[in-house]
């Protein structure tokens, strides 16, 4: 393709090609400081014109690559950066077979990892990014990669996707860590945030998981903690995994090992500060 950007995030190398330079220029800026893969790339993403005449005339971007969803809707070129990000997520969700993939945010402290998972909108992305700026090391906000043989997490610190008002929580961070404001996307207004230098520098370490939390946000909700037993945890995590079924026996073995060895709890919170306090308390008591 005309324009190419190669990117390594943790153990995964991407090759992103595009008909246009603009989305790749935004990616390069967003991922400044990340390593460039030297050999083969695990996945190819194509940010290309939906139809040949859509290259110049009302340009519209299709999200394609090695793995595709047949009914993925195209985006306007102004959201090309989002298309590339979604393309990388799609390759991971459909094509990743080396790790058990959990839809979860992850942060590290004291050499151990905290996983934040739950339905979308629960706040796992915002919480993991916030923790990453407050004494924890950010490992990822979208996918947690669990080693099939060793049960350890591989950091996958992609750019954080901050939705709508969430960006306000990071207003004190330098402007150069942010991507452009993408308004009118299918998920509202989105702004990407580059993880900090510690997250990027540590992206090749392995971290054993030590605690799993299921946050649930509700402004009127009283703060609450409920323990989650191993059986419930297993059922919830099968639903949070995009490749559990495809990994068959190895996926089952990795997931049962995780559920037997790591404690879990569901937390309700009404404000960010409340959530951070709950996390600190549960982490200390793990």
């Amino acid at each position, binding site marked *: 393709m005309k324009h190419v950007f190669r990117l390594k995030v943790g153990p995964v190398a991407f090759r992103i090609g595009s008909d246009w330079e603009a989305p790749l220029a935004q990616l390069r800026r967003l991922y400044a400081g990340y390593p460039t893969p030297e050999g083969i790339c695990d996945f190819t993403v194509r940010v290309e014109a939906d139809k040949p005449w859509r290259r110049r005339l009302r340009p519209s971007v299709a999200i394609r690559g*090695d793995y595709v969803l047949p009914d993925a809707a195209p985006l306007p070129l102004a959201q090309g950066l989002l298309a590339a990000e979604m393309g990388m997520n799609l390759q991971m969700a459909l094509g990743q077979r080396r790790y058990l993939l959990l839809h979860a945010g992850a942060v590290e402290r004291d050499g151990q990892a905290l996983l934040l998972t739950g339905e979308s909108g629960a706040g796992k992305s915002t919480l993991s990014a916030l923790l990453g700026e407050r004494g924890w090391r950010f490992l990822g906000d979208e996918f947690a990669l669990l080693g099939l043989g060793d049960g350890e997490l591989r950091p996958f610190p992609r750019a954080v996707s901050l939705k709508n008002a969430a960006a306000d929580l990071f207003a004190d961070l330098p402007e150069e860590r942010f991507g452009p404001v993408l308004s009118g996307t299918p998920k509202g207004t989105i702004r990407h945030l580059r993880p900090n230098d510690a997250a990027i520098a540590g992206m090749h370490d392995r971290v054993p998981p030590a605690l799993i939390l299921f946050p649930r946000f509700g402004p009127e909700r009283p703060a609450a903690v409920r323990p989650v037993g191993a059986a419930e945890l297993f059922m919830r995590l099968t639903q949070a995994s995009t490749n559990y079924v*495809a990994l068959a026996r190895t996926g089952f073995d990795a997931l049962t090992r995780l559920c037997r060895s790591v404690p879990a709890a569901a937390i309700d919170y009404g404000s960010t500060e409340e959530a951070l306090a709950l996390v600190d308390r549960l982490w200390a008591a793990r």
Partner: protein
Amino acid sequence: MTAAARELTGLLTDPARAGEVADWTALVSAARAESLAGTLAWRLAGVPLPREVERLMEDARRASETVRVEALWEAEMARRALAPLGVPVVLLKGTAYAAAGLPAAEGRSIGDLDILVPARSLPEVERALLAAGWEWVKEDAYDDLYYRRWMHELPPLIHRARDRMIDVHHTILPLTARPKPDAEAMIADSAALGNGLRALAPADMVVHASAHLIADGDLAGGLRNLWDIDRLLRHFAGADAGFWAELQARAGHHRLWRAVHRAARLANDLYATPIPESWRIWDSADPLFRARMLARDGWGRQTARGLRFGFYVRSHLLRMPPLMLARHLLAKARR
């Protein structure tokens, strides 16, 4: 033709040339787009590779093993649903290769379960599958009627719990196509597998693979289907010197010699399949088929738009006479 597709066929043919590959990312993208990633990974097993490439090939081999187990399990589910009927159930394509342990199955992608049953048993087979949890995919009345009147298979069924598709064939080409293969003979001469199901006899297996590739469809995914033919021909002809004569006679019986002959020439051209000297003739259309099959670049994109459109039109003309085609397209456009 693109360099990535040609490099892919070259490497499948001769894995020892792995050292010559300059752009592995492009090669893997082309292989994934052609559903040949698992096959490539098995062909490269034991060949010295750069470490990261080797790890990716290990992933692909593991993934293809899961695909194989799931496909065989789906066949077993169909066997259990159909066993009480006492009708012969013949596995086709990928699942058949896997169940028979043929080299064509090594690393192969397998999607739907394809089976062949006697035409007269269709109503009871349909009832038994519906009772066992399969459901119609297409609800459209025109599509349903079209399948039942003109196609060689029932409208596709999908299992509501396992989300897997089954194609129930009663012959191997649409009823509207000119050649009329002898499906009864195919079923009568099929061989029992150890698992209570059946597979086509070797010559019929090649006839079916060739009909599927050359006499039906628009050659999308053609490199994978041609690889099947290469593996089948090498395996069957290697074990039985009389295989070529038998294949030619059988193809003639099914009125599919032209398709088998062309498939064999293309396999010889792209995968160096050994074929009889007398089969190696020049045909003016072969270069078009060859170019169509290689229309895939190192980004996994299809190339040669005009040529692909030509083969798309051809696939419809093969399926039905022009007047019927016009009526069909009109009915589709109206809804």
